[in-house]
């Protein structure tokens, strides 16, 4: 047997155009490293320098990511990583989430006496993990990116070290996260065993050319990977961890998690779901049963997400369950995507608007939360409109957007999603989804009732920090802009998804 020619020269070097496509990732990693260094520099107060570096690197990354959207697709690292419209779209989303979360948490950490620079470094690492999840095409790399994101998240959740609730939340998240990652990994192993490759593009190619590769082990592996992702996005049977973690974690982190981590998980989920080969004719996948199972999961996710949220008085837990409900709507999008003309575009749009809405809401909550992040209850909000008209107006816009009332982005994206779901023939699922969202309308409006219509014995007056006010205002503007003129956003998502 002669020696195998392993070394392939083309893999060694990186062409200049590949470098530019790696721009965003390099910015973020560079930023985090620099931040770590400045954290320990004696003279400059870490508080300011680390934040500035973090924001600067995020902005640099956004700029370079913006070029990628229009640039055509370039493959990197022997096909393991790709820089196409899809990944650029999500990169911008994650970078924006990170930037806005940092803006919201600067004053928050000061109030909570938690001003450690590690916070921002870990935030950058987690963002890096997310960006990779959206752009890697190889199962192992996706797993590693997932781990980068999750490890930083576990630490960030447990960041308030001497608070029992924060530790408890972090530990719960860690253990269940680890178990779920193991399940995902085992699925990858089974897929590898059936198709002989990690690259999802290869898997798709091999499965479509030789359908007999779809052995029971393949389906088993595929379902385990799907379950791994369902856990990450907190679909109902696997959602139990989310409310506790959201309640225990510091508020900006909850905001960061509910938007960033969910979006990243969905980004990877979409790529993997397409490559599993079930997309062509979802009704017939795994003997027609995959469609039914996903249908049921989507329904119970929407139903229980909304119904339990109805009973919550703690704001963070309520938004956690509303996030579960939104996962339900996204799952409806997933089921409908293969057969609808708009494909996965509605999911992307929904994720974008969902991120803007929730981030805005959580920034407001971080501004509202008092010392020690006491759990924020509904009646703390009563009469807020009288003392902070603009803040409560912003919160009302976000709530109306989550409830899906017309002039807001939430409405545009939710009904673009249902619109494409109807085209895919899922009429009864959409009717049920619509009825669940009516339950949602109730508890979103209940918050507005407390703010506007109750006498004000709630929180005492407090100063709204400038940074947070700026980010909230920007998000309100985005929500209304997308709500009134959604066509630009729809066009972008459609173009991005076309090359998927």
């Amino acid at each position: 047997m002669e020696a195998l020619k392993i070394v392939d020269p083309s893999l060694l070097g990186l062409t200049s155009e590949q470098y530019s496509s790696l721009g965003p990732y390099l910015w973020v990693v560079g930023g985090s490293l620099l931040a770590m260094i400045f954290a320990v520099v004696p003279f400059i107060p870490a508080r300011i320098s680390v934040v500035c570096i973090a924001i600067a690197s995020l902005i640099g990354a956004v700029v370079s990511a913006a070029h990628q959207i229009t640039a055509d697709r370039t493959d990197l690292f022997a096909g393991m990583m790709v820089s196409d419209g899809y990944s650029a779209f999500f990169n911008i989303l994650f970078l924006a989430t990170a930037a806005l979360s940092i803006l919201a948490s600067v004053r928050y950490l000061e109030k909570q006496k938690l001003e450690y620079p590690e916070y921002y470094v870990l935030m950058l690492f987690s963002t890096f993990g997310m960006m990779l999840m959206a752009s890697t095409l190889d199962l192992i790399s996706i797993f590693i990116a997932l781990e980068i994101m999750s490890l930083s998240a576990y630490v960030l959740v447990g960041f308030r070290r001497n608070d029992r609730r924060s530790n408890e939340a972090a530990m719960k998240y860690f253990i269940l996260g680890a178990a779920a990652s193991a399940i995902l990994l085992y699925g990858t192993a089974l897929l590898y065993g059936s198709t002989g490759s990690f690259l999802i593009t290869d898997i798709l190619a091999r499965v479509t050319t030789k359908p007999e590769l779809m052995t029971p082990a393949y389906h088993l592996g595929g379902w385990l990977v799907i379950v791994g992702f369902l856990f990450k996005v907190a679909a109902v049977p696997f959602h139990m961890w989310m409310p506790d973690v959201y309640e225990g974690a510091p508020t900006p982190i909850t905001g960061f998690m509910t938007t960033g981590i969910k979006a990243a998980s969905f980004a990877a989920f979409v790529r993997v779901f397409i490559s599993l080969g079930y997309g062509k004719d979802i009704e017939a996948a795994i003997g027609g049963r995959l469609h039914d199972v996903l249908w049921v999961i989507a329904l119970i996710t929407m139903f229980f997400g909304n119904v339990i949220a109805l009973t919550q008085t703690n704001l963070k837990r309520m938004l956690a369950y509303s996030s579960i409900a939104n996962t339900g709507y996204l799952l409806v999008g997933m089921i409908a995507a293969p057969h609808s003309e708009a494909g996965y575009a509605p999911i992307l749009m929904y994720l974008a608007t969902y991120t803007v809405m929730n981030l805005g809401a959580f920034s407001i909550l971080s501004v509202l939360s008092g010392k020690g992040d006491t759990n924020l209850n509904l009646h703390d909000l009563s009469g807020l409109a009288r003392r902070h008209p603009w803040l409560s107006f912003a919160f009302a816009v976000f709530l109306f957007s989550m409830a899906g009332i017309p002039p807001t982005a939430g409405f545009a994206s939710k009904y673009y999603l249902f619109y494409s779901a109807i085209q895919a023939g899922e009429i009864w699922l959409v009717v049920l989804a619509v009825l669940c969202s009516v339950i949602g309308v109730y508890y979103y409006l209940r918050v507005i009732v407390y703010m506007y219509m109750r006498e004000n014995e709630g929180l005492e007056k407090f100063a709204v920090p400038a940074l947070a006010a700026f980010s909230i205002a920007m998000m309100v503007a985005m929500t209304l802009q997308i709500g009134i003129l959604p066509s630009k956003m729809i066009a972008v998502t459609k173009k991005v998804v076309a090359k998927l």
Partner: protein
Amino acid sequence: MNTENLVAPWVVQSFCAMIFFIGLSGVLVRRNILVILMCVELMLNAVNLSFVAYAHQLQDMGGQMAVFFIIVVAAAESAVGLGLLIAMFRTLKTVDTDEIRLLKE
């Protein structure tokens, strides 16, 4: 090479599955967080073995590469996990999952 008394690939995979489920049941049943972490390691090892077995069957190096990365991930994970455990121990003075029921409903 007498082929008939060789170990069939599905047997190896079933063995991995068994180890995996023993690890999983350990995570579910045991209350001591340390043991839970160990069981997670056990599950990851089962997956590693499955990777190597498939690599061997498919005559492809991918499996072994994957194992290499999984070991690294497991290391990082347990580092953070134990860090969390220490932080929790410092405040809750216990490693029992039954104590941490503060966040519910």
